[in-house]
C-alpha cells in the first residue's frame, strides 16, 4: 500500500467510484463505464480504490447507503471483492468474484433495450478471459488443477447467448466469439468452436459483413487456423486471405500472424511465396522449405523442419509442412525427367528406379527399391505424376502429356 491512507480518504474514494458507476449507467455513458470495469488496465484510480477497499473492509455498507448504488449491489459487491483480492495478488479468489459481478452485469444488460453498453460488455469479456488465464497459472503453480479458464469459457458462452439473438445487440456477438476462440484454443477444446461458428455462419438474420471490421478479421483468422488444423486448405486459404486483405495494413504483427498460417496453406496448394515477403515479415523460417520445394531437395526439407521443429510444432503447422514431402518428390522426379530429356529426348519418359535411388543418395537419403516403387505408386495415385510403374523391370513410364500435373491452387488429392 502506498503512503498513509486515512479512513476518510478511503471512504471518499469508494463513494466516488460508486457515484461514477451509477452515473455512467444512468446516463448510458459507456465511455465512462468502461474504465470502471477494466481490471487489467491497472489504472491508478482502480489501484487506489482497491487500497481503500482493503483498508475499509466494510464497503457493503457504503453500497447500501443509497438506492442509487444498492440497485447495482449484485454487480458492485462482488466487483469490490474481486478488486480487493486482485490488489493482494490473489487471483484465484479474484476470479470467481469477477465472474459473479459479470453475471449480474449481463442480467442488467439483458434488460436494457438498446445496445448502449456493448463496449462495457467487451471489456468484461476480455477481462474475464485474461483474469482466468492468470488465475489458472496461479493454480498450477500451487499444484492444483487449473479450472478458471474453463469457467470463463462457460461464462462467455452465456454472453454469446445474450447477444446472438435478433436485434441491435447481435453486432457484439462476433467479439465474444473471438474471445471464446482464444479460450478454446488455449484449453485445447477447439471442437467447441463448432457450435458458435455454426451460429455465426448460418444465421439468416444477420449479414456477416455487418459485424465490425476488427472482429471480422479476428474471426477469419481463427476460423482460418481451424481449417489449417483440419487440413481443409481451400477453406483455410479463403478465410486467411480475407483476414489478410481486411486487416489493418499498418499492423505488421497482425499481418505476420496471418501469413504464418497462410504461407503453409499456399504451399500446400502449390503456390510459393516470393523471398521478399518472407524477409519483409520476418518469416525466414519458411525460406528453406520454399527452397526445398523449388529444388526437389528432400534433405533440405527435412533439415528445415528439424531446425524449426519447436516453432512449427507450437504454431501447429508442422504436420502441414511435413506433408509437402510429396511435392518435393514430385519436383525431384521432374528434375530427373528434365535432365534425361536433355540427354536423350526419345527415352526421357522412361525412368529407372535405380536413377531415383541414386539421386536420393546424392542427397544422403537411403532408400531401397521397394520404397522408391512405393513413392512412385503414391505419386501416381495422388495425381502428382502420370504414368505407370513396371515392377519386374524396375522402371517408371511417364505419360507423354503433362507427366507432372501442377496443383494450381488445388490441394493434393486425399
Amino acid at each position, binding site marked *: 500500500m502506498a503512503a498513509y491512507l486515512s479512513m476518510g480518504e478511503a471512504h471518499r474514494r469508494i463513494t466516488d467510484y460508486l457515484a461514477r458507476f451509477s452515473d455512467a449507467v444512468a446516463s448510458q455513458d459507456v465511455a465512462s463505464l468502461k474504465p470502471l470495469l477494466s481490471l487489467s488496465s491497472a489504472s491508478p484510480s482502480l489501484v487506489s480504490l482497491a487500497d481503500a477497499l482493503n483498508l475499509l473492509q466494510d464497503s*457493503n455498507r457504503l453500497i*447500501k447507503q443509497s*438506492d442509487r448504488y*444498492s*440497485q447495482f*449491489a*449484485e454487480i458492485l*459487491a462482488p466487483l469490490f471483492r474481486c478488486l480487493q483480492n486482485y490488489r493482494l495478488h490473489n487471483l484465484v479468489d479474484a476470479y*470467481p468474484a469477477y465472474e459473479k459481478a459479470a453475471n449480474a452485469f449481463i442480467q442488467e444488460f439483458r434488460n436494457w433495450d438498446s445496445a448502449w453498453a456493448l463496449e462495457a460488455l467487451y471489456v468484461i469479456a476480455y477481462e474475464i478471459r485474461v483474469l482466468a488465464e492468470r488465475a489458472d497459472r496461479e493454480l*498450477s503453480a500451487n*499444484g*492444483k*488443477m487449473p*479450472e478458471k479458464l*474453463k469457467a470463463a*469459457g*462457460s461464462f462467455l*458462452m452465456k454472453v454469446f447467448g445474450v447477444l446472438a439473438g435478433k436485434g441491435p445487440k447481435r453486432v457484439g456477438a462476433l467479439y465474444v466469439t473471438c474471445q471464446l476462440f482464444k479460450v478454446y*484454443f488455449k484449453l*485445447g*477444446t*477447439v*471442437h*467447441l468452436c463448432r*457450435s458458435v461458428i455454426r451460429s455465426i455462419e448460418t444465421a439468416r438474420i444477420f449479414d456477416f459483413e455487418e459485424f465490425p471490421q476488427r472482429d471480422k478479421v479476428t474471426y477469419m483468422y481463427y476460423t482460418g487456423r481451424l481449417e*489449417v*488444423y*483440419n*487440413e481443409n486448405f481451400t477453406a483455410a486459404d479463403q478465410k486467411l486471405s480475407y483476414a489478410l486483405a481486411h486487416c489493418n495494413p499498418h499492423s505488421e504483427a497482425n499481418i505476420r500472424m496471418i501469413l504464418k498460417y497462410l504461407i503453409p496453406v499456399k504451399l500446400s496448394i502449390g503456390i510459393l511465396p516470393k523471398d521478399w515477403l518472407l524477409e519483409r515479415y520476418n518469416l525466414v523460417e519458411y525460406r528453406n522449405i520454399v527452397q526445398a520445394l523449388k529444388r526437389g531437395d528432400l534433405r533440405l526439407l527435412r533439415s528445415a523442419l528439424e531446425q524449426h*521443429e*519447436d516453432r512449427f*510444432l*507450437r*504454431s*501447429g*503447422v*508442422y*504436420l*502441414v509442412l*511435413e506433408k509437402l*514431402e*510429396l511435392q518435393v518428390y514430385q519436383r525431384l522426379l521432374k528434375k530427373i525427367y528434365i535432365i534425361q530429356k536433355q540427354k536423350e529426348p526419345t527415352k526421357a519418359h522412361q525412368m529407372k528406379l535405380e536413377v531415383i535411388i541414386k539421386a536420393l543418395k546424392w542427397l544422403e537419403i537411403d532408400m531401397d527399391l*521397394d*520404397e522408391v516403387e*512405393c*513413392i*512412385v*505408386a*503414391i505419386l*501416381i*495415385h*495422388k495425381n502428382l505424376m502420370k*504414368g*505407370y*510403374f*513396371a*515392377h*519386374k*523391370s524396375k522402371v517408371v*513410364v511417364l505419360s507423354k502429356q503433362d507427366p507432372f500435373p501442377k496443383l494450381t491452387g488445388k490441394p493434393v488429392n486425399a
Partner: protein
Amino acid sequence: MERRQNHHQQPQNPRRNPSSSSSSSQSSNHRSRYRPPNRAGGDARPHRREDPYLDSGDAAVGGRPRSLARPMRAHASEAAAGSSIGVRERQEQHRRDQDREDDRDCRELASVVGTCPHMCPVGEMAQRERLRDLAVFERLHGNPAKTSPELAVKKFCRTISTRDVQLSDIRPFSVLGSTLDYLMSLMNSTPEPFETVHDFIFDRTRSIRQDLSMQNIVDKRVIHMYEKMVNFHVTSHHKLRLRSSGPDSFNISSLHHLNMEQLAKVLTSLYNLYDLNRDHSSTHKNEPEYRSLYVLLCLNSESLPEGERLSLWFRRVPTPVIKSKEMSFARRILRYFRTGNYSRFFSTIAAEASYLQYCALEPYIDKVRALAVLCINNGGYKLHPYPIAHLSNLLMMEESEVESFCNACGLETSLDEQGNKVLPTKQPAFEHPKAGYGKYGFSG
C-alpha cells in the same frame, strides 16, 4: 438433468441389456443409497451444458469440483433477486451465507478422504446382494445373491453432488490401488469371455477414477494407476478387435466404441497429471510411450472422441517428450501414414513398435494395406502382374492372407506362367474392404 445424461448414454450403449449375466452395468431400475438423489437440478445445467469436461459425469480429473455448493448458492441468489432494495439485513445475511458457502467449498475439496476399507462399500454390497445385482466375478461360489468383501467391487454410478456421498462410501487411495491391481489381475486369469471381463473392469475402473477425483488425488501416486488403466483400454482395443467378427459383432463394435471413449478420457486425465506433476529436472518415466499412444490412436485426421487434432495436440507436448525415442517412432509412423509410404510404415512397425503401441495402431494396418493394394493396382504396368510373394513381404502378411485380402478389396488373383501367384493390375473393381471384414495377422 438425469434424463439428459441417460440420453447421452444410451444410444451407443446396447450392452446395457438386462439379460447380460455380468450385469455390471448401472441398472437404472433402482435408486440405491449410493446413488445420491438429484438435487443440483436446474442450476447446474446452464453451467454444464457447454462444458466439455463436466459433460459426461465421468470422474476424469478435470471434472471434479462440480456441485459442492451449487444448490444452496442458487437458492440464495434467487432469493436475493426477489428481495426488495433496502432490506439490508436480509441481503447481508445472504452475502454471509454465500461467503461461508464458498469457504466450505474450499475446505471440503481439500479434505475429502474416504474411509471405506473394502473394494466395495458395505451398504452397496448388501444392497446388490438383495437385488441380485452381482457380476459373475463377484458371486461367492457362483451364488448370484451372495458376495464377499474379497469379490465385490464398487460399481460406477453417476454422482451429481459429492455432498450426498458418505465418506464410508469412498475408498481411500491405498484401497483404490489394491482394487485396481485386483481388477488387472482378472484380465488374464478367468475363463469368462473377454467381453464379460472387459465389461466388468471397464465399469469398476471408472468407479475408481470417480473415487480418486472426489478426493482430488492428483499427485504423482496416481500416475501409475492411470497408466495401468490406459493399458487396460489399449489392450482391450486390440482384444475386442480380435473378437469383432461373429454373431455378436454388433455388440462388440459398440463395446469398442465405448472403450475408445473411456480411453480418450483416461488419456486426457493422464496427460493432465503428467503436466501437473512436472518438475523441470525430469520427465516421467513412462510419459514418452503413453504420449506416443495418442499419436498412434489418431493417425488419420479423425481424433479420439472429444480429442484434439494432432496439430493442436502437439503444441502442448513438452520438448523432451517430443525428442524421445518413443515419440520419434510415433511421429515417423504418422509421417509414413500421412504420405502413404506403406513400405516404411510396415517395416518400421515391425522393427520398433512396443506391444502397447502396436495395439494402438493396429486398426490402421489394414487401412494402409488397402492403400498399398490400391496404388499397386492403379499404378502398376498392366503386362506385369504384381507377385503375391512380394506383396506378402511388403504388407507383412502371409501369402494366403494376401490373397484373401486382395479378394476383400474386390480384386482377383491368378497364376503366372511359372505358376507363381500374382495380382493382375489395372483391375477396375477395387473397393475398400468393409469394416470387420476379417482379421489378418502382422508377421513383422
